[in-house]
């Protein structure tokens, strides 16, 4: 005679259907939520990042530019939401990551060449495969310094070049760059910017670049992703379509100046809001 009163019943919580991004989307972010110290940094954040393009992330201080790419790269855990790479999870996706602080990104106990080969060794590649890939990388980067030295024996620019080579060694689908030029002097910034452009033209690797320098962000970008203050949303996505290779002359083209001006306007609007 036992009757369960108030028996639990299932409520059909409607699961929002997955909305794929437009054609040519590489990374889809849906319902991303991240709290920092009890405050929302990202709440129900949606974003599509295009394939075979460079997307520059730009926004006000503290809006979580680096946090965004770190969440996508799996370095910072997310509270909820879904991030897919061509429909796959991060686990099934090969990525490369370039840190701002190259000094603490490379392993000083390994020679530079072994640092670059490290991700290949993690994949269990044979020595012949590793050697072939290294020769390829050295040729495409036109390396002029001795890779048998230890990282701390190289200049800052050389170390960052090595970091980028390491990130690209396993032919990643996506390359993340977190303010890769911020710790470099102007000469090296120009040099590495050109290298990145060359690599992109050769491989078409999807790149996600966080930058605090608007000129640099626009110069390299196919799309400039402008973020708002926190809780962070997409303020605007501005396309910049000038053909590559872009050069010093590009910096004075009307189309470049226009793209930079538009970005600055959106940025200032968001900062003042």
């Amino acid at each position: 005679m036992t009757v369960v009163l108030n028996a639990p019943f299932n409520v059909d919580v409607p699961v929002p259907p997955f909305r794929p991004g437009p054609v040519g989307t590489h990374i889809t972010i849906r319902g991303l939520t991240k709290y920092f110290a009890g405050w929302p940094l990202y709440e129900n954040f949606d974003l599509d990042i295009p394939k075979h393009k460079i997307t520059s992330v730009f926004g006000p201080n503290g809006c979580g530019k680096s946090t965004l790419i770190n969440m996508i790269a799996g370095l910072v855990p997310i509270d909820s939401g879904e991030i897919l790479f061509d429909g796959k999870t991060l686990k099934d996706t090969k990525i490369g990551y370039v840190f701002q602080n190259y000094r603490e990104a490379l392993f000083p106990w390994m020679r530079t060449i072994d640092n670059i080969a490290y991700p290949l060794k993690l994949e269990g590649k044979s020595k012949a495969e590793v050697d072939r890939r290294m020769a390829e990388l050295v040729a495409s980067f036109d390396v002029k310094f001795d890779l048998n030295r230890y990282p701390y024996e190289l200049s800052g620019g050389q170390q960052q070049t090595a970091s980028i080579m390491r990130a690209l060694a396993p032919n990643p689908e996506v390359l993340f760059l977190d303010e890769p030029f911020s710790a470099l002097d102007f000469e090296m910034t120009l040099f590495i910017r050109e290298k990145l452009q060359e690599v992109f033209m050769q491989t078409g690797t999807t790149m996600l670049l966080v930058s605090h320098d608007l000129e640099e962000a626009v110069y390299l970008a196919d799309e400039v992703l402008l973020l708002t203050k926190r809780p962070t949303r997409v303020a605007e996505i501005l396309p910049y379509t000038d053909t590559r290779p872009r050069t010093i002359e590009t910096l004075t083209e009307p189309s470049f100046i226009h793209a930079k001006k538009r970005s600055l306007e959106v940025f200032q609007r968001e900062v003042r809001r």
Partner: protein
Amino acid sequence: MAATPISTALPGAAAQPWTPAVSDAVAVAPRQPSWDKVLPFIGPVVLFIVWDLAVRLGFVKAILLPPPIDALSALITGLAGGPLLHDFGMTVWRTVQAFLFAAIVGMPLGVLLGSSEKAYRSVEFLIDFFRSTPSSALIPLFLMIFGVSEINKVAIAAFGALLIVVFNSAYGVINARKQRVMAAKVMGASRWRVFKDVLIWESLQPSFVGLRSAVSMALVIVIVAEMFIGADSGLGNRIINSQQVMNVRDMYASILAAGALGYALNVLFLMLEKRIVHWSGR
């Protein structure tokens, strides 16, 4: 009135100060580096002279302090095949045993504890407590466990040294650069690979600091143990024996030998650290 000072000043000022000024500038500049090489010897030489004068002028009784030449010659003849050499060797051997035990057990233990922060936090108090306890205070305890034996002297030194090594290695892992760990993770390294390829290497430099302090600690405790735990050999034993028969020459020679040993061990470990942890400080 106005002409006299000028006329006297001119020949002196024009002819003389010029030539020495030039020759000084030329001569002083290259002499600078050779002076730098001499600097480290000034302290010991001054000490030697003060010591010698203190004995010679009778500030200190010769029965308490022998002239430095006597102490040094006792040291040299003693180490050149004399009985001091045997005691020196015994102290080195005990220190090496204690140190090796501390290093071989302590480094892996510290790295393991450090890689699991929960494990380290649960034993942190014990390590910190016994690390802060003067090991010599535990000599009676060790006497009860090991008796008056050879093992006892090594055991207590090893115990003191072990805690230092464990503590430093564990903190080396705990304080590993987060970004290097992240770099390895983002390249797809498993937990084991992160441990093997990053954490162990990151802990090497603090571990070496630990090893260097540990070898000093081992030497201190070995000497104390040799003094008070019925030893019949070793520098500590020799120092206390010569003190009791007022053989001050031999006592000072033994003290100097112990000092030289401690200094040499420190320099040896600094050199090893520079070789092995070649990236340290860069």
